[in-house]
């Protein structure tokens, strides 16, 4: 995606930036963070997508408000036999049918079970995006589903990033046997396709939950998909960070710290970690998009969020069988996923351009 290949993102150094702005004095004393923020502020596309992402997050966080003040139902409230009034007309939320026996085992059937379609705001906020076959309000479920998807995506990205940092610091700093063990561990995870590993772990853990090491997590808990996704992405962040630690470890300032008698822990936390900050921030932003997509895929395949809890993935899966007669059921959560992931990716690219300008070539693929 070559979204940021414009001229301002080719600025590599403070000096170049200063030159472009017409004088070296203007940037004297500014930290790399300030410079990065300045670059980011000028990337309107990235900022627009950041705004979009924040808007989605806010909407999802307001799900309980929507549920109590607009739709009037919870995400899992069924209403198979219910009716609503639209423009003075009474409509079944889920269509009724009937059977008449004709003899010889044959019967006449009036089909039933077709859910009501989007009512927009003609029914006082009820069934804005229609219902599913259990009569549940789709708009409410999409908002709650988004909350679950974002929660899993962000939490798993945070956990995987944290674990990756620890592994990368240990492997890169100590090297030797520690490095060998940790990199083999990365290889082990990397050897499996993400989705395959996610399905295997997600299915196994969702059956009986996790009840070891003093933890008591039920199979339907959101922590199951969160933990699974966190685990499968460790090498995707751990490997590049380890490479950077290996390079940093050979720098003069580390040698100086060692000469001054600083402990290993102090060197890792105070000397190396700050130098990884920009990479971590970029990688975190980009991995969130991946974890959200993985959550959707696992939930779609039944190995993620367990029903009746909604997530965007489970909602698409639920609507799959009715895609012809009730396409909105799958399309609406699909659009939500596309917008979220797109906004995170575009913003993530913008952030990388701002924090790590030398990476400009890598993103132009």
């Amino acid at each position, binding site marked *: 995606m070559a979204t940021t290949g414009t001229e301002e993102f080719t600025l590599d150094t403070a000096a170049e930036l200063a030159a472009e702005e017409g004088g070296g004095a203007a940037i004297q004393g500014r930290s790399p963070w300030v410079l990065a923020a300045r670059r980011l502020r000028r990337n309107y596309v990235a900022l627009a997508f950041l705004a979009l992402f924040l808007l989605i997050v806010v909407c999802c966080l307001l799900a309980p408000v929507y549920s109590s003040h607009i739709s009037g139902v919870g995400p899992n409230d069924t209403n198979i036999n219910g009716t609503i009034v639209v423009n003075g007309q009474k409509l079944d939320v889920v269509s009724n049918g009937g059977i008449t026996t004709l003899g010889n*085992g044959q019967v006449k059937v009036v089909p039933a079970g077709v859910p009501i379609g989007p009512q927009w705001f003609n029914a006082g906020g009820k069934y804005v995006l229609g219902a599913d076959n259990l009569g549940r309000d789709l708009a409410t479920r999409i908002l709650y589903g988004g909350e679950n998807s974002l929660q899993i995506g962000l939490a798993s990205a945070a956990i995987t990033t944290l674990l990756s940092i620890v592994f990368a610091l240990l492997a890169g700093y100590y090297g030797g046997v520690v490095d060998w063990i940790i990199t083999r561990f990365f290889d082990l995870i990397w050897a499996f396709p993400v989705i395959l590993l996610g399905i295997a772990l997600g299915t196994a853990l969702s059956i009986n939950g996790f009840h070891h090491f003093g933890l008591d997590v039920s199979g339907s808990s959101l922590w199951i998909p969160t933990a699974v996704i966190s685990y499968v992405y460790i090498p995707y962040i751990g490997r590049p960070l380890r490479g950077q630690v290996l390079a940093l470890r050979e720098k003069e300032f580390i040698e100086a710290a060692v000469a001054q008698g600083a402990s290993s822990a102090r060197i890792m936390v105070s000397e190396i970690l700050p130098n990884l900050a920009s990479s971590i921030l970029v990688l975190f932003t980009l991995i969130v998009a991946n974890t959200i997509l993985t959550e959707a895929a696992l939930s779609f395949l039944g190995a993620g969020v367990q029903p009746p809890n909604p997530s965007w993935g489970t909602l698409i899966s639920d609507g799959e069988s009715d895609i012809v007669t009730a396409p909105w059921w799958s399309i609406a959560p699909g659009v939500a996923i596309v917008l979220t992931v797109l906004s995170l990716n575009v913003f993530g690219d913008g952030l990388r351009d701002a924090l790590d300008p030398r990476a400009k070539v890598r993103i132009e693929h």
Partner: protein
Amino acid sequence: MGAAVVAAGLALVVTACGGGSSSSSASASGSSSGSGSSGSIASTQGKTFPTLKVAWGDTDYMDPGLSYRLESWQLFQDVYLTLVIKQHANGPAGAKIVPGLAQSMPTVNKAGTDYKFTLRKGLKYSNGTPIKASDFEKTIVRDFKLNSPGIGFYSNIVGVDPCEKSPTKCTSIPGIVSNDAAGTIEIKLKQPESDFLYVMSLFFSAPVPPTTPATPQGSPPPPGSGPYYIANYSPHKSFTIKRNPHWQKGAIATVPDGNPDTVQGTILDDLAQSAQMVASGQADYDENLLPSDRLAQYQKKYGSQIKYFTTPSTYYFFMNQRLAPFNNIKARQAVNYAIDRNQLVKLRGGLGKPTQNFLPPNYPQFKAINYYKYDLNKAKQLVQQSGTKGQAVTVYTISDVSTDKAIGEYLQGVLKSLGYKASIRELAGGNYFTIVGNQSTKAQIGFTDWYEDYPYPTDWFNVLLNGEKITQIHNNNYGNVDIKPLNKQMDQLAALPGSEASSTGTNSKWAALDQAFVVKNASVAPFLNGVLTSFFSSRMNMSCDVFDDNQDDFAQFCLK
């Protein structure tokens, strides 16, 4: 051997001539064929056409010794014949037992423990090998060697015990005595068995050539003994059925000679795609159920090409009586009161009829139960009284069939509203029954359904609710229902001689069992009897369609 009685009397219920215990043997058995009553075959035959194209649901095997799915059995009815068969006729008549490979109904001794069949003469398999009496025993032995899912049906045959202990080492069954020269097959039973002739109509006992290896066959399937044979089978993809070149027209009056010369089948699990093949004229018949979400649409556009049939099936929730909270009868009653059966029918697209009975309504043993009126408040009170409120309950259901999934989620919602901490576990259909049928899964409650193997209550109560048949794995009694007095009653009814199997008194006893399980013990929560669809292309003549106990009989299909 005592006075022989005609097993035709046993044609049970369905023939409405049960109880004829005293009639003389030979004459009635000689009334052979039972073809006279079928009638329908004559009216649909002689309308041959070159090729029938069908869209078919996925099959498990194309080997009669192994297959235990309707999709296969529907094809087998015109390919693999058994000594006695279910009549190829519409409605209840389609469950009547009539002679197949046997020239007449068997003679049975007075005790109901000795069945003698005589094979028709001159029959050949599709590969030209003559069909011999001894092939029958060899077929049952092959079933054991294959560890067939059907071997349990033969546990009452004398001398079968070593085969049951070591199925793969089975070499002969002393209780089956064959005489190739005379064409006779004598089957000795340990004790009378009321449903034995129905068991004999199952395809597990359909003779295959003695040279057929005791390994799963499929490419190609074993040679056929009926008017057709399966020439080609590609698992999960396609099959081709052709006429048996050694079949003599009219060889068996109860079996149609068949109208299509060739049947080309495309195997599809996707209901929408399957229906679309017929709608677009690429296939003439859709064996799969029409997708519930498009039912209205298809009915509007192709109404005259769709038929609906009630089936001998019951959809119900099992409740594990070895585990809390459903080891408490009040909790089980609460579920029965709390489920709205009309809503559940709706979730199946309207393709069902609400029921509270375990037995399907087309059985003469059926006596309608109308006990559980939907009453959520009463259900809540029962849960309160049971002291189980707040307990954790996991609902099991099938994930890849949207209607089953919705039914499971509905039940979860109901249990939550009753005050349980209900969660749901959705499993793929291919593994579902293996997992919930494994005791180590400890499935508390869940969705299940049953489509009869044969139309007699033993196939329901004794298979699904008899505590003596509970197993550690592959358990069909998912709720571990084990009520000693009812077990005894079931055993007694199952051990009745065929002549008493369908008497009014016996029927009443089965109906009382239905009542005892559903009302008195709330052992299960039945909610609907399924309705199936048959969808034909516009070139097919719908009046030729015969929906028998093995569903639509392709051999009788004809063109307009």
